């Protein structure tokens, strides 16, 4: 994360917003605070922040509407902060265009990691290279082949497409519905059984230990996240 960035915190709870301000100031960033949607919109239009942290439970209405408005205007990372058990809300916010989420209570470390990875993604140039790597996995988009270390992975076409989709959207939270639509097609949006079965099969092929997977992380009730620690 570059220093001296402007971070807009949209949060009505003072204890949380103070903690967030403190954490970002410590890292040398500037923060703006908005307690409701109205103020948030004004700050976005006048101050042009680099990142938005948005609490979904705002007093003057729906955070999702704000996400849609911002998405129509600008391309800046939006990270949603939400209470647990709001899975539907989180999915709706992600579908509306939010880039990532954290649930309360969260550790500041976790939040900062999300902010960094989201920003990195925004600056990433999509290479036209047909070879994509992630840690010890390399996939060749043109030849439909994949390697783990120097061992070729025996993948079915669907497994390959799933892995390719994951690697291309590395470190990003991907909702079940989105993965199903993108990999299987629109008609499969609610066919969870396919996704679970194929993720399971893929894990057996790429993970060393399926009970503590390093690549495909489950985001309970939301979707999956494919973890790559190496830069693209």
């Amino acid at each position, binding site marked *: 994360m570059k220093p001296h960035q402007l971070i807009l915190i949209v949060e009505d709870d003072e204890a949380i917003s103070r903690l967030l301000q403190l954490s970002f100031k410590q890292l040398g960033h500037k923060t703006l605070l908005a307690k409701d949607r109205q103020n948030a919109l004004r700050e976005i239009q006048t101050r042009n922040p680099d990142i938005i942290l948005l609490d979904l439970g705002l007093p003057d209405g729906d955070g999702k509407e704000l996400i849609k408005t911002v998405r129509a205007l600008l391309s800046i990372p939006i990270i949603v902060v939400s209470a*647990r*058990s709001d*899975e539907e809300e989180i999915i709706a916010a992600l579908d509306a265009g939010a880039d990532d989420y954290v649930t309360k*209570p969260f*550790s500041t470390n976790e939040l900062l990691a999300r902010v960094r990875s989201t920003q990195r993604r925004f600056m990433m140039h999509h290479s036209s290279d047909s070879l994509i790597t992630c840690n010890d996995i390399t996939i060749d988009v043109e030849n439909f082949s994949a390697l783990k270390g120097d061992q070729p992975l*025996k*993948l*079915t*076409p*669907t497994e390959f497409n799933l892995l390719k989709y994951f690697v291309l959207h590395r470190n990003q939270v991907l909702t079940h519905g989105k993965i199903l639509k993108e990999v299987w097609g629109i008609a499969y949006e609610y066919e*969870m*059984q*396919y996704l*679970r*079965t194929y*993720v*399971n099969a893929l894990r057996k092929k790429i993970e060393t230990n*399926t*009970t*503590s*997977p390093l690549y495909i992380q*489950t985001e*309970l*009730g939301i979707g999956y996240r494919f973890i790559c620690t190496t830069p693209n």
Partner: protein
Amino acid sequence: MQLFYMYRHYIVTFFLFLLITGISLVFRQELEMTNIILIHLLPVIVIALRGEWIATFITTTASIALLALYAPPTLSFIVHEMIYIWSFIIFYIVGYTITFQARKIHANSVKEILYNTLSHDLKTPLSSIMGNATFVVETHPLDPALRYQALAQIIESSRQMNRLINSLLDSARLKNPQTPLKNGWCDMEDLLTVALREFRRDVLHERIDYYVSSELPLFYGDSGLLMRLFVNLIDNALKYSDEEKPIKISITTTPNAFHISFSNECPPLEPTELANLFEKFYRAGNTADISGSGFGLSICRDITRAHHGTIRAYNDDHGIRIEVTLPILKRPASLKMDTL
């Protein structure tokens, strides 16, 4: 023994009936019908105080049937005089009024235990958080190891509090029949992984020793609740076993059910303690100093029941084994799988 204890009220009532019948037969002339009717009210009151509608109904009916035997014509259930019919109606009214009141009192005492347990269980981690935070702010410990220790304790206590609050939310959800389960296809191994992430790695150390059958089918259930089931079972195993001792987890299937078992090493429990383990607010006798509540395991039972399964505790070779059996009620459809 345990069975006797559970049904002690009914056993008492049975002997009461025997006694009353004896007295009524021997002193029939001296007591007269009025007093015989009055002593037949006794078992009704004893059972009605339990606050169970069906038990009250059965006892009242039995008592009335016995009375009908004495009422002329004797030794027949036929009653000629209207006045006895009124007595019988009053029997039911008395029985049901007492049952109603007993239920009210019972509900209040449950609430009281709930508040006490909750305030205790929430205050324990909270006082650890406050204590450690105050220690760091006010005494400025110079030793970084000491400071780290205090801060790590704050994090662990907040996690503990978070787990308890989540359990309470689940419990409220399970109690409300208006909120059905969010059923979907679940990968049990995956849920176990997510549950293990709720704990700090240095708390788990290398203690978790798991076996997950390699060809585990998908299970149709509420993923959020099943994950909480695992969290509570891990939490329980960690709390009630000696540090450094392994915790064994296994997930296997038979054609009709999933079998999940958690074992931890600790001294054996009495059979009554084993049976009561899943009752709310029960804490095994020898564990007065252990933080936490009987809440976790009672939620495990609620979650298991919501999935039509069973949960049992056993004394194992070296400790306690908790076994959850979840019946397979819906099988995954065969998918159009592609091949290599």
